[in-house]
């Protein structure tokens, strides 16, 4: 099991928190294949890959990104596997996720059984 990524944007040594080894998973961002740690926020994996614009605003299509980091502000909304309005900062990364930048309100939700 691969547990180490070579990107250097993550805190590894912290005086209080431990960061146990986690499985590396593959997901896609706008069709591009990326890797991140399983269970970390989607936003963390995207940030590590240098991706800052996660969403564009409703009226003026201005860039929106990682902001409050606690699921409150609606700045980091992305489309995950076709579902709009997923908060990248609180949603955990899973193997095979298809993540896309959300434009405005994004696609309409689809009926689920």
């Amino acid at each position: 099991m691969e547990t180490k990524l070579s990107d250097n944007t993550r805190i590894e040594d912290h005086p209080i928190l431990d960061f146990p080894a986690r499985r590396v998973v593959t997901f896609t961002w706008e069709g591009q294949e990326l890797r991140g740690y399983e269970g970390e926020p989607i936003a963390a994996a995207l940030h590590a890959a240098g991706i800052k614009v996660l969403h564009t605003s409703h009226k003026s299509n201005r860039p929106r990104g990682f902001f409050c980091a606690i699921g409150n502000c609606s700045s980091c909304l992305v489309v995950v596997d076709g579902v709009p309005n997923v908060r990248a900062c609180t949603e955990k990364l899973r193997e095979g996720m298809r993540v896309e930048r959300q434009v405005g309100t994004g696609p309409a939700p689809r009926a689920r059984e």
Partner: protein
Amino acid sequence: MRRTADAVVIGGGVIGAAIAYNLLKLGMKDVVLCEKATFCSGSTGRCGAGVREQWGSKGNCLLAKASIDMFERLADELDYPHDLEFKQKGYLILAHTEKEWTQFQKNVALQNSLGIRSRLCTPEEAREIVPALNTEGMLGATYNARDGHANPFHVTRAYLTAAERMGADINYFTEVTAIQVSGGKVKAAVTNKGTIEAPIVINAAGPWAKPVAEMVGVDLPLFTQRHQILVTEPVGWILDPMVMSFSIGIYCQQTPHGSLIMGIGDPHEPKGYDIGHSWQFLRDMSRIITRLLPVLKDVRVVRQWSGLYTVTPDAHPILGGVPGLDGYLQAVGFSGHGFMLAPAVGRIIAEMALGMEPFLDVSNLDAGRFERGEYNVEPSVV
């Protein structure tokens, strides 16, 4: 604030704003509007924002039809620089009971006779209009493409700014505390910021219409009742029309912004001025709306609130003056549909104030109809 006026309008909701504008448009020079808080702070700013012609009584149909005619050209008429978010994507009103279906056939016949182009739909036709709709247990629906939505804040603001341009004196945080009457004639409105001498005082106080009418000794058969409502996060297109059911007591519409506004009536709601909100509403609303529109299961609620309906015994407004009291007019008791009637009512009340013949005859909507027993209850309300 001015100390004299040709007319004082009480209430800074859409009704008061529309009246003030129309008074000036029809030639009155000196109009003062008194609002005890801020504009839209009563029922207007809390409403469901729907506009429809599909009513069950001639009176409501004609007022609503005339209002939609006016909504269609309102932004131009008021020279308002922002979008009023007026959309005409229809109302789809669902029938789930035989009683409703019978009533709807009568309603559509009445509406068609008045020039309203509503029509009956089969459940299949309803699904063509709203593909997300679950038609299980549905007998049919009525649809009228001219119905729709407008933004209550923008509409009210548009009326107020147009009135101000023509010289209206609009006062917020100005509460009318008394109306002076002498010899059967209105003399002045007394406010917490001073007295305004005026021969005409117009009660457009929404939920506070009853206490205002009491200032001139008029006892109105009104009560207020909380109605709860919620709004979801904005999402991509789900549905065009307002989806509504009277037997379930529910309405739901997607605004031009993408959020969905919805509400449900509670038959056990006590009368009063409570405008809190409840967990029970969220639970009931979610359960019922996701049965009708299952796609909403994955749409998040962002806010809930409530507002007051000011209800008359027949669910029609009370419009006009009171015998023996010169200079007092009222536009009250809209029973949950004041916003959509405001354009026509604003003009009618202004015409009455100026001694003109109203463009629509509303003499059967006077306050005296209840004592005379000359009224019929509007069947089509949530």
